[in-house]
């Protein structure tokens, strides 16, 4: 039997399997009936009394599902730790962008504080308007990315500083959860005064959690971007 023919048989078998799976999946999807009075409306109903947060998404992410957020942050930390382990040995302290432009440097200097301010605004107002820790952290990291791209070797991250910020904010995040467990009934329970809906001082423990998440995410993503920009000769 020549190899071409084997490949054809394999292709037919694989496509048959894929079509059977698709038909099964379509059957499951078509026979699926949504629960009456779904979880979302229930959460929205109790959101007003329990958290006083204007943005219901953030109260789901940090308050009702705080443990899942801890898992997400851990996954992000582990992936960046793995990339760092693989890349650190090959690291050569030089930017790959050999691009010298005075206009770009001045413009980056003017834009960098604006981007950092916008990221901090998104983090702090996470319980009032769309946004939160993850989004604001990534915005701050994109500001650092602009500086890496614009100033090729004059701008370097202080790695001790980023490690310290990341470790302290992760520890603070877990500490808030444990304080909730000790002072109130459950992990990530609310032990702060709730405040009034729509004010900056409201939402109880949610802004605190989001500040920690934002610091952690910004430190991690900036470190990742610096790894990618400064290495040479990936094998």
């Amino acid at each position, binding site marked *: 039997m020549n190899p071409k023919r084997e490949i054809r048989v394999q292709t037919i078998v694989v496509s048959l399997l894929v079509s059977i799976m698709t038909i099964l999946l379509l059957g499951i999807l078509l026979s699926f009936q949504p629960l009456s009075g779904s979880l979302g409306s229930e959460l929205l109903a109790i959101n007003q009394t329990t958290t006083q947060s204007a*943005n219901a998404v953030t109260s789901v992410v940090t308050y009702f599902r705080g443990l899942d957020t801890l898992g997400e942050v851990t996954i992000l930390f582990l992936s960046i730790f793995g990339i760092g382990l693989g890349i650190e040995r090959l690291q050569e302290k030089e930017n790959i962008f050999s691009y010298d432009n005075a206009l770009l440097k001045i413009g980056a200097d003017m834009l960098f504080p604006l981007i950092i301010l916008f990221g901090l605004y998104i983090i702090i107002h996470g319980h009032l308007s769309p946004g939160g820790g993850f989004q604001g952290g*990534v915005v701050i*990291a994109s500001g650092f990315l602009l500086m890496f791209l614009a100033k090729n070797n004059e701008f370097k991250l202080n790695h001790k500083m980023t490690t310290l910020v990341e470790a302290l904010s992760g520890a603070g995040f877990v500490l808030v959860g444990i304080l909730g467990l000790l002072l109130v009934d459950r992990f990530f329970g609310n032990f702060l005064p709730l405040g009034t809906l729509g004010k900056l001082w409201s939402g109880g423990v949610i802004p605190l959690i989001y500040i920690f998440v934002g610091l952690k995410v910004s430190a991690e993503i900036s470190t990742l971007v610096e790894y990618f920009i400064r290495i040479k000769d990936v094998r």
Partner: protein
Amino acid sequence: MIGLIVLCIFAMLILLAIFIVSNNDLAHSVILFMGFGLGSAVLFVLFSAPDVALTEAVIGVGTSGVVLLVTLLQISKKGRNV
């Protein structure tokens, strides 16, 4: 009216996805991928999910696009100086 805009963006996203997969030049693929992220961010805003739209706009357009371009520069011989 909103439905018409959403349908146009859906058609544009499908076309962009076909172009991304079937392109020979990887740099063009990355740039089209950034355009795909921008279109889906607009779609998320129209579906009233601004949280997801913010994340998609920063991650999908900015950071991951630049990381993919940098990786492309690292593995290609010709593009050492941009």
